[in-house]
C-alpha cells in the first residue's frame, strides 16, 4: 500500500473547483487524497501528458479521472490524444462528468474510455461512487506492466 502511495497518482482533470474539492473529499475517504494531481483544463492535461518530462509523469499515473466540459481543450479531445499516443494508450481513463447525453457516452466509449460515470447532484451519492471508483481502480484493478 505504501509503495503504491508513493509512486502512483490519480490524475484529476476537472475545471470546476467545487467538483474537484468534492472529488478529493471522496478520495480522501479512500485515503487517496495525496495521490491526486489536479489539472484545471485540457491544455494543462495535454501539456502534462505530452510535454517535457511526460514520460516521468506517465510512469506515475495509475488512473485518469476526466471531465468532459473543459475550457480550451475539451475532455473528449484529451481522451483522443491519450488513446492515439503509444505511451499513454493503455492508461485507464474514467470519464467523470455531469453530462448524461447519450452522444457523449457513445463518443467517449468510441474513443476508448474505460468507464463513464455521471456525477450525481446528491452529495452522498457523489461521495459514495467516487470513493468506490478510487478504491476499485487504484487498488483492485491491474494495469499492464504492474508487478502486482
Amino acid at each position, binding site marked *: 500500500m505504501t509503495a503504491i502511495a508513493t509512486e502512483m497518482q490519480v490524475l484529476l482533470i476537472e475545471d*470546476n473547483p467545487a*467538483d474537484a474539492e468534492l472529488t478529493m473529499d471522496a478520495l480522501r475517504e479512500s485515503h487517496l487524497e495525496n495521490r491526486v494531481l489536479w489539472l484545471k483544463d485540457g491544455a494543462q492535461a495535454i501539456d502534462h501528458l505530452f510535454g517535457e518530462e511526460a514520460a516521468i509523469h506517465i510512469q506515475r499515473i495509475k488512473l485518469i479521472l476526466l471531465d468532459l466540459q473543459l475550457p480550451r481543450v475539451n475532455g473528449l479531445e484529451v481522451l483522443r490524444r491519450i488513446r492515439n499516443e503509444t505511451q499513454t494508450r493503455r492508461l485507464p481513463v474514467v470519464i467523470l462528468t455531469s453530462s448524461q*447525453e447519450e452522444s457523449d457516452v457513445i463518443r467517449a466509449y468510441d474513443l476508448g474510455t474505460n468507464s463513464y460515470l455521471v456525477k450525481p*447532484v446528491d*452529495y452522498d451519492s457523489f461521495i459514495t461512487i467516487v470513493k468506490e471508483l478510487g478504491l476499485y481502480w487504484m487498488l483492485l484493478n491491474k494495469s499492464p506492466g504492474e508487478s502486482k
Partner: protein
Amino acid sequence: MDAIQAGKRAKTALPTPRLTVPLLTAGFLVVIGVTASWRQGDDAIRLALAVANNQAKLQALSEIERDVRESESNARGYIITGNQAFADQQHQANQELQATFKRASQLLHDSPSQAASIETLNNAISSKQALIQSSIALRKQGNIAAAKEIVNWPSIEAMRQLQTILDHLQGQSNNQLEANKRKLNQASLWARSLEFVTGAGLLGLLISSGLMYQHQSKTIQAATKLIGESESLFRSLFEQAAMGRALRSMQGECQANQAYISMLGYSQRELTSMDAKALIIPEDLDQWECAKADLLAKKLIAARLSLRYKHKFGSHLWIEESLQLLRNSDGEPIQWISTILDISKQKRLEAERRELALYTRSLIEANPDTMINIKQDGTIQDVNEAMVMATGMERKQLVGQDFSSYFSDPEKARMGYQKVFADGYVKDYGLQMRHRSGSLIDVLFNARIFRNETGVVAGIIAVARDISERKRLERELNNLNESLEKRVTERTAELKAANEELEAFSYSVSHDLRAPLRAVDGFSRKVMLAYGDKLDQEGLRLLGVVRQNAVRMGKLIDDLLAFSRLGRREMHFVAVSMQDLAESSATELIELEPGRQINFSCEAIAPCQGDPAMLKEVWMNLLSNAIKFTRHNNPAQIHVGSRIEGESTIYWIQDNGAGFDMAYADKLFGVFQRLHSQEEFEGSGVGLALSQRIIHRHHGRIWGESQIGQGATFSFTLPLQRLSPSLGDHP
C-alpha cells in the same frame, strides 16, 4: 325459288328444235316443184299433141299413097279387063283420096315448111289422077293400047313424083315426130324429177310439221305442268307468307292471307266488306292515295310505301307496303295486290337507336374535353363542341382537315396518332393546341383506336383535356414549392441552428447547471459535517431545506432533459407485449413503496406495435402517478385493462386515488403543469407531458377522466394497424 327452278327444268327438257331451215327448204322445194310441174305439164301436153299430130300426118300421108295406088291399080284393072267394077272402085278410091288429102292438108298446116308442100302434093295428086282419068277415058273409048301407054309410062312417072313428095313429107313428119318424142321424153324425165323434188319437199314439210307438232305439244305439256306448279306455289306463298298479302278487286272485294289477317286483326269476312282506306290512319292516307293514282295512271309499276295501319283494336302499326296493280292482257286493271310487312318493331328499334344515338351524341357534345375522331390518314372525321371552342374553328372547317395542323408541334401530334395506330392507345400525351386566335392551350391526349363491326380499325377516338389551368397551377405550385423549399431550407437551417443551440443549452443544463447544484448540496453537507455542532436545530433545518431544493432542482433538470431528448430519440417499432410492460412497471414501482398496501390488477391486455422503451416510460409514468395519488387510500386500488374500439386499442389505468378537477383537465399534459401542491403530491409536472409526447409519436391519444376524491382513469390509444413512427417534433 321453286318456280324459277321449275322454269329452268322445263327449258332444259324441251329445247326448241332448229326446224326453221328445213321447213323453209322443204316449202321452197314444194313451191319450185309445183311451179315447174305446172309449166312442164303445159309443155308435155303441147308435145303430146304435136306427137299425135305427127302420127296423124304420117297416117294421112300413107293413106294418100294407099288411095293413089288403089286408084291406079283399079284403073289398071279396068284398062286390062274393062270390067266396070274396077272403074267403080277406082272412082271410090278417088273419092277417098280427096277426103284423105283434105285431112292431110289440114294436118300439114301446123308446120309452115310442110304447108308449103301441100300445093305441090295437090298438083302431083291432081296430075296423077288426071293421067288415070285420061287412061280410063281412053279405055272407055276402047283405045286400049293408048290407055295402056298412058298407064305404063306417064302414070308411073307421075306416081314416082308423087311418091317423092310423099316421102319428103313423111320424112319431115317422121323427123318432127322423133324430135317431139325426144322432147316428150325429156319433159317426162323433168316431170319425174320435179315430182321427186316436190315429193321430197312435201315429205320434209310433213316431217318438220310432225316434229314441230311434237315439240309444241311437249312444250304445252310442260307449260301446263309449270302453270300448275306455279299456281300451287303461288297459293302456298300467298297463304303462308310471313308478309301479309291482300288481293283486292277493282270492285273492292278483298282476299287476304293469314299473315294479313293476323297482322291487322280483322277477319277475312270483315276485310271483304271494308274499305281499304279505313285500314290506314288519316295522316298517311294521302301518300297511299297518291300511289294508287300513280299506279292507275301507269306512272309506276309498283309502289313502295311506309305508312301506319290501324289494328282492329286501335293500335297503330308501322307497315311497309308494296302496292301493285294487276292488269289483264288488254291493259285493263283487274286487281290490287297489297303486300304488307309489320315494321313496327324495326321502327321502334330505329327510334330507340336514334334516341341512343342522340343521347350518345349529347354525351359527346356535353363533354368539356375535346373529342376528335381521326382517320388512318390523320384527317379529322368528327369533333365535338369542345374542339370547336378550343380551336375557334367551325365544325365543317375542322372535318376533313389534318389533325396535326391544330397543334403548335404538328410533328409531335402526328407521332401521337401514329403511336395510337401502332400501339392501340396513348395515355396522357402532351400537346399544345392552337386556337385560331393564336393562343395555345396545353392539353393531355388520351386516345384509343376503334373498330367497325367487322373488327377493322376505323380510326381513333382522341380525347384531349385542357390542362392549361392545371399547368398554370402546376407552375404556381412549382413556384410555391420552390419558395417553400427555400423557406424550408432557411427554416431548416434556422431550426438546425436552434436545435444546435438547444443542444448546447441542454448540454449546459445537464452539465453546467448540475455542477453548481452539486456544489450547493455538497457544500451544505460539508457545513453540516464540519460545523454541525456549532449550528442549532433551526440552522441545521435550513441547511436541510437548501439541500432538498438542490436535489429537487436536479430532478427537475433531469426530467426536463429527458423530455427534450424524447423528441429527438429514434423509435424502434416492434411487437410489444403491453401486458408485460404494465406488469413489470407495476412490480418495480410497488417495490419502491414497501410500507404501502397496493392492490394492482391487470386484465389480459392487447399487445401493440411500438417502441418498447418509450411505452415502458408511459406505463412507468402513469402507474407511478396512480401509486402516488393513492397514497392516502389504503388499500390503493390500481386496475389496468384494454379494449378495442374501431381502428385502435384503448389502454386504461384506473385508480382510487385523489383524482383531479376536470375543469383543469386540459392542463394535465402541459410541461410543469401540476394540479396538486408540492406538499400534497411532489412531482416535476413532466411525467404526463412526456407520456403524451410518446403516445403522440405512436399516433395515439391520451386523456384523463376524474372527479375529485373519486380516483382517476387515464386512457391512451394506439392504432391497431402499424403506422410508421412519427418524426420527432422539437420542443
